C-alpha cells in the first residue's frame, strides 16, 4: 500500500511534473554547470556569460514549446508536484516572459561587461536563481510555494544589489534592501501562518471554499473572530507583496537600491521582480475571491485602488526633483507599479460584484491588460536602463546633466531613449499608450460598480500628464542642450547599437504593428482567461 503510493508519486513526478518544470530545470542545470566550471577551472574555456546565455536561451525554447502545447488546449489547467504548483497558460506566459527577459538581461550584461570574467559565475548564478524564484511565484498553487518563490527571488536580489563590493553606495543599498526585505518576508510569513492555520489548508485553490466554511460556522463578515484572523493574515501577506511591488508605504528600498546597484541589476529588478509579484498577487486575489468573501474582497479591491492612487502620485511627484537617472527611473518604476495595480483593483471590484457572471469578458480584460502592460514595460524599461548602462561605460556617471547633447552625438542611443521614455509616459503610437489604454478602459468599466473607480481613473489620467514633465526634462537635456566640449565622446560598437535598436523597435512595434500587438493581446487575454477558469473548475 505504502510502496504503491510512493510509486504513484514517482511516476507522476517523472511523467508530468518534471516536464512542466522544464524551463526552471534548464536554469537549475545551468547554475550547476556554471559552478562546476569554476570549480574545475574550466571558466577560461567556458566563460560564465556564454553558459548563462545558452542556458537562458534553452529555457526560452522550453517555455515556448510549453506555450504551444498549453495553447492548443483552451482552459488547460493542471496542478503538479502534488498540488504545490499549477500549470496553465497564465504561468506559462510568465515563464516565457521571464525567460525572454533573462536572455535580454544576460545579453545586456555581456555588452556592458558589468560582471568581469572573475565574478561572472557568481553573478549569473544569482541572476538565474532569482529568475527561477520568480517563475515559481508565477506558478504557485500553495502558500508554501508563495513564500519560497518570494524568498528565492529576493535573496539573490539582495546580493546582486550589493554586487559592486567596494562601493560605499552599493553596500548601503544592499543593507537597506536586505533589512527591509527580510522584515517584509517575516511579516508575510506570519500572515501565511494565520491563513493556513485558520483555514486548515495551504492549497490556494481551496482557500475561497474554506473561507465559506469558516464564515458559515459563525457570524459572517468581520464579526467572526476566525474571519478576522484570516483578514489580518491576508493583509500581512499583502504587505510582503506590496514590498516586492514597491507600493507606497513599502517603497523606501526601491530608489536607494536602484541608485546603489548597477543599472543592469536595476533593470532586472524593476521588470522581473515586478512581473513575478503581480502574477502572485493576481493568483492570490483570485484564489481568495468566492461567493462568501465577495464583500470583503471588493473592499480589498477598493483598498488596492487607494494604494494605487497614492503610489502613482507619490512616484511621479518624487521623480521631479531627481538629478540621478537611475533614481528617476526608480521613482518611475514605483509610479508604473501604481498603474498596473489599477488593473488588479478593477478586477477584484468586478469579480466580487453581484453582476460578476455577466462581466466575465471585462474581468478577463483587466488581467489581459495587465499582462500586455508587463510585456510592453519589459521592453521600455529595460531599454531605458540599457541606455543608462551603456552611457555609464563611457562617461562613468549616471547624472542626467551628463546626457547633454547626446541627441547629436549618438542619435541611435538618444532615439532609443526617446522611444522608451515617451512610451513610459504613454503617448501613441508607442506600446505604452495601448497598454495604458487597456488598463484605463477596464477601470472605467469597473466604475459602473463603484464610484471610487472613476476617481482612480481620474487620478491615473492626471498622473500620466504629470509624468510627462520629468520624462521630457531628460529628453530636453539630451536633444536641445549642447554637449560640453570637454566631455568624452560616446561611440557605440555596432553590436550595442543593434541591441538598443532592437529594444526600441519592439517598444514602437508593440504600439503600431497590428500583427504583433494583436497577437500579444490575444495571448494575454487567453492567459488571463486560464487563471479564472482554473479557479472555477476547482471550486
Amino acid at each position, binding site marked *: 500500500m505504502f510502496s504503491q503510493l510512493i510509486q504513484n508519486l514517482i511516476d507522476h513526478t517523472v511523467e508530468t511534473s518534471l516536464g512542466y518544470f522544464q524551463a526552471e530545470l534548464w536554469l537549475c542545470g545551468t547554475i550547476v554547470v556554471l559552478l562546476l566550471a569554476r570549480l574545475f577551472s574550466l571558466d577560461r574555456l567556458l566563460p560564465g556569460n556564454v553558459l548563462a546565455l545558452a542556458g537562458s536561451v534553452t529555457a526560452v525554447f522550453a517555455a515556448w514549446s510549453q506555450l504551444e502545447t498549453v495553447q492548443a488546449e483552451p482552459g488547460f489547467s493542471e496542478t503538479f508536484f502534488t498540488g504545490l504548483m499549477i500549470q496553465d497558460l497564465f504561468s506559462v506566459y510568465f515563464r516565457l516572459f521571464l525567460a525572454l527577459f533573462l536572455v535580454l538581461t544576460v545579453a545586456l550584461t555581456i555588452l556592458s561587461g558589468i560582471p568581469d570574467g572573475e565574478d561572472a559565475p557568481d553573478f549569473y548564478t544569482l541572476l538565474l536563481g532569482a529568475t527561477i524564484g520568480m517563475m515559481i511565484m508565477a506558478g504557485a498553487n500553495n502558500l508554501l510555494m508563495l513564500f519560497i518563490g518570494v524568498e528565492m527571488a529576493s535573496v539573490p536580489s539582495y546580493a546582486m544589489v550589493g554586487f559592486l563590493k567596494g562601493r560605499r553606495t552599493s553596500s548601503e543599498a544592499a543593507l537597506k534592501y536586505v533589512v527591509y526585505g527580510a522584515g517584509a518576508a517575516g511579516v508575510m510569513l506570519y500572515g501565511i501562518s494565520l491563513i493556513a492555520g485558520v483555514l486548515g489548508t*495551504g492549497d490556494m485553490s481551496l482557500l475561497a471554499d474554506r473561507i465559506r466554511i469558516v464564515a458559515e460556522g459563525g457570524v459572517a463578515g468581520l464579526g467572526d473572530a476566525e474571519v478576522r484572523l484570516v483578514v489580518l493574515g491576508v493583509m500581512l501577506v499583502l504587505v510582503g507583496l506590496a514590498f516586492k511591488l514597491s507600493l507606497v508605504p513599502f517603497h523606501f528600498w526601491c530608489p536607494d537600491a536602484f541608485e546603489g546597484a548597477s543599472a543592469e541589476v536595476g533593470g532586472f529588478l524593476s521588470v522581473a521582480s515586478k512581473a513575478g509579484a503581480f502574477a502572485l498577487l493576481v493568483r492570490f486575489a483570485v484564489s481568495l475571491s468566492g461567493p462568501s468573501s465577495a464583500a470583503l474582497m471588493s473592499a480589498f479591491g477598493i483598498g488596492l485602488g487607494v494604494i494605487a492612487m497614492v503610489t502613482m502620485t507619490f512616484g511621479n511627484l518624487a521623480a521631479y526633483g531627481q538629478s540621478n537617472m537611475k533614481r528617476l527611473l526608480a521613482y518611475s518604476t514605483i509610479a508604473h507599479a501604481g498603474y498596473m495595480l489599477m488593473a488588479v483593483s478593477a478586477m477584484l471590484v468586478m469579480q466580487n460584484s453581484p453582476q460578476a457572471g455577466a462581466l466575465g469578458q471585462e474581468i478577463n480584460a483587466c488581467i489581459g491588460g495587465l499582462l500586455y502592460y508587463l510585456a510592453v514595460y519589459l521592453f521600455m524599461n529595460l531599454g531605458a536602463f540599457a541606455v543608462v548602462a551603456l552611457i555609464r561605460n563611457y562617461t562613468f556617471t549616471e547624472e542626467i546633466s551628463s546626457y547633454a547633447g547626446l541627441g547629436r552625438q549618438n542619435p541611435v542611443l538618444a532615439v532609443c531613449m526617446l522611444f522608451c521614455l515617451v512610451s513610459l509616459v504613454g503617448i501613441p503610437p508607442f506600446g505604452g499608450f495601448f497598454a495604458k489604454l487597456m488598463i484605463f478602459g477596464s477601470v472605467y468599466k469597473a466604475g459602473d460598480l463603484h464610484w471610487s473607480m472613476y476617481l482612480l481613473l481620474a487620478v491615473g489620467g492626471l498622473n500620466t500628464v504629470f509624468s510627462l514633465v520629468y520624462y521630457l526634462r531628460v529628453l530636453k537635456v539630451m536633444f536641445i542642450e549642447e554637449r560640453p566640449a570637454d566631455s568624452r565622446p560616446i561611440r557605440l560598437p555596432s553590436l550595442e547599437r543593434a541591441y538598443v535598436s532592437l529594444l526600441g523597435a519592439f517598444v514602437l512595434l508593440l504600439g503600431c504593428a497590428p500583427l504583433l500587438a494583436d497577437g500579444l493581446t490575444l495571448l494575454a487575454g487567453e492567459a488571463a482567461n486560464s487563471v479564472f477558469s482554473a479557479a472555477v473548475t476547482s471550486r
Partner: protein
Amino acid sequence: MQPSLSGYLLIGAVLFTCGVVCMATRRNAIGVLMGVELVLNGANVNLVAFSRYTTLGIDGQIYSLFIIVLAAAEAALALAIALNFYNNHLTIDVDKASSLKG
C-alpha cells in the same frame, strides 16, 4: 492536561510583536536581523501549533522545516551584506546608511 491552541498562538503573537518592535527600534543592523528571526520563529510556532490542532496536519510542520532552512539562508546572506557594509563604512549602525536619499 493538554495546553490549548490559544496558548501557543499567544506565544507566537508575542514573538512576532517583539520581533517587529526590535526591527523598528534597533539601530544596529545585527539587532534588526535578530528581530527578523524572532518574527520568523513566531510564524513557526504558529504553524506547528496549527498542525497539531487543525486540519492543516503535517503540512504545518513541513512548512516550518522549509522556513528554518530559508531563514538560515537569508541570515547568512544578510550577515555577509552587513560585513560588506562594515568594510565600507566601519560601522553597522543603520542610521549611518544615509548617503543615498532624495
